[in-house]
């Protein structure tokens, strides 16, 4: 988040996160389903605890979790730096680490400073800046002024340690061809 608007964005983010429904993944009204295993839930809990221990600010909305199953409330960490483990390791859970930046170059540097590169998202009102950011970000999918979009005609897959190959699109067909 750009430092100059971080407070405002964070307030809106918290308001929106407070309305997310956590529950049965088969219910169409559900925003966040269950965690896929006890093992993964333990990993999310452990990394979140490490985030707190390392000094990041932890926030979750007041939300009711189902009594049985593997659940984790949506969580934001603020005041995160690149040295924090929650910024370096894949949490793979409903956890958002917020780092702030002052210039687009700083944002790119921080976004690329990880061994992973599955996807990236960028929001900005200036067209040329979006195209520049999309060029610079080392990720397999870049969502610009949108997020979490998928389509069978569009290749999905990561850079660096986020995986081999692509699924979907013309590039996704390659693995099936001799």
């Amino acid at each position, binding site marked *: 988040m750009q430092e100059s608007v971080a407070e405002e964005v964070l307030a809106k983010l918290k308001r929106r996160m407070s309305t997310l429904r956590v529950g049965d993944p088969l219910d169409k009204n559900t925003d966040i389903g269950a965690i896929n295993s006890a093992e993964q839930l333990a990993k999310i809990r452990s990394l979140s605890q490490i985030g707190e221990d390392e000094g990041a600010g932890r926030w979750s909305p007041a939300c009711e979790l189902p009594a049985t199953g593997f659940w984790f409330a949506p969580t934001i960490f603020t005041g995160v730096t690149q040295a924090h483990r929650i910024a370096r390791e894949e949490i793979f859970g409903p956890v958002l680490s917020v780092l702030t930046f002052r210039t687009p170059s700083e944002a790119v540097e921080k976004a690329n400073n990880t061994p992973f590169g599955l996807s990236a998202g960028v929001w900005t009102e200036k067209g040329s800046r979006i195209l520049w950011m999309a060029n610079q970000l080392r990720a*397999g999918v*870049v969502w*610009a002024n*949108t997020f979490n979009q998928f389509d069978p005609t569009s290749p999905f897959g990561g850079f*660096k*340690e986020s995986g*081999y190959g*692509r699924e979907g699109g*013309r590039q996704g067909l390659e693995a099936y061809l001799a």
Partner: protein
Amino acid sequence: MSGNAERIVVRKTYKLYIGGAFPRSESGHSYPVHDAAGQFLANASLASRKDARDAVVAARKAFPGWAGRSAYNRAQIVYRIAEVMEDRRAQFEEAVARSEGVKASAATAIVDAAIDRLVWYAGWADKLTQVLGNANPVAGPFFNLSTPEPVGVVAVLAPQSSSLLGLVSVIAPVIVSGNTVVAVSSAARPLPAVTFAEVLATSDVPAGVVNLLTGHLDAVAPRLASHLDVNGIDLTGVEDPALAISLEVAAAENLKLVRRAPGSEPDWSADPGLSRLTQFLQTKTVWHPIGI
């Protein structure tokens, strides 16, 4: 001048090429290089694992600038390598003839082919994106574009027999798309590679885009294969199947893209096709909403 007979011969020291400079191996080690008939030719630097790590650092440093240049500019620079090679062809012909034990006419043909290959790959720089990239017709109001991107730092283990044509044929396709390279030359025939490095240094190729190590694969290849800041590895020059397997296992640690070792050395005079160009590319897809 009457003193000609007493002149001390100035012998060339064959060194490594790292970050645009020509250092000796940090280990201080060298090894003797012989011609095809077994006659001593020169001592070459024996690259150590530390040299390999230094080369990776140089390649990583050069990557953003090289990948960020326009494809057209990279094409011009790779073409420039061909120009400078052409200018020094006599030196290459001699080095190839002595290293590979081929006749002068065959050496000339090999140098011709190496120069032509650089020109061919240079031409691909600004055509790859059109051939491999495309717009995707997603079922929603989005502009959706996929483009091929360089993977980053690639370790290239060059072939053991073809000391020049083979070397050029494995390096050019990797750099032309924006990757940077740490190459390990033929162990027994490293001298043409060192001369090639001298051409690179005077061809507008930015420092660190190609780094060249001479020596034995046993010492440096495992370091490159397991290095977490290397994104791809080409095993073309690995002749020992057991070494190839151990390198593949090491490369899996950080999901490097791997070009597997061939069963036998490829025919470098054949049409190269696109596989070496596309080996170390990855697709980036950008989404943007369409609306008013």
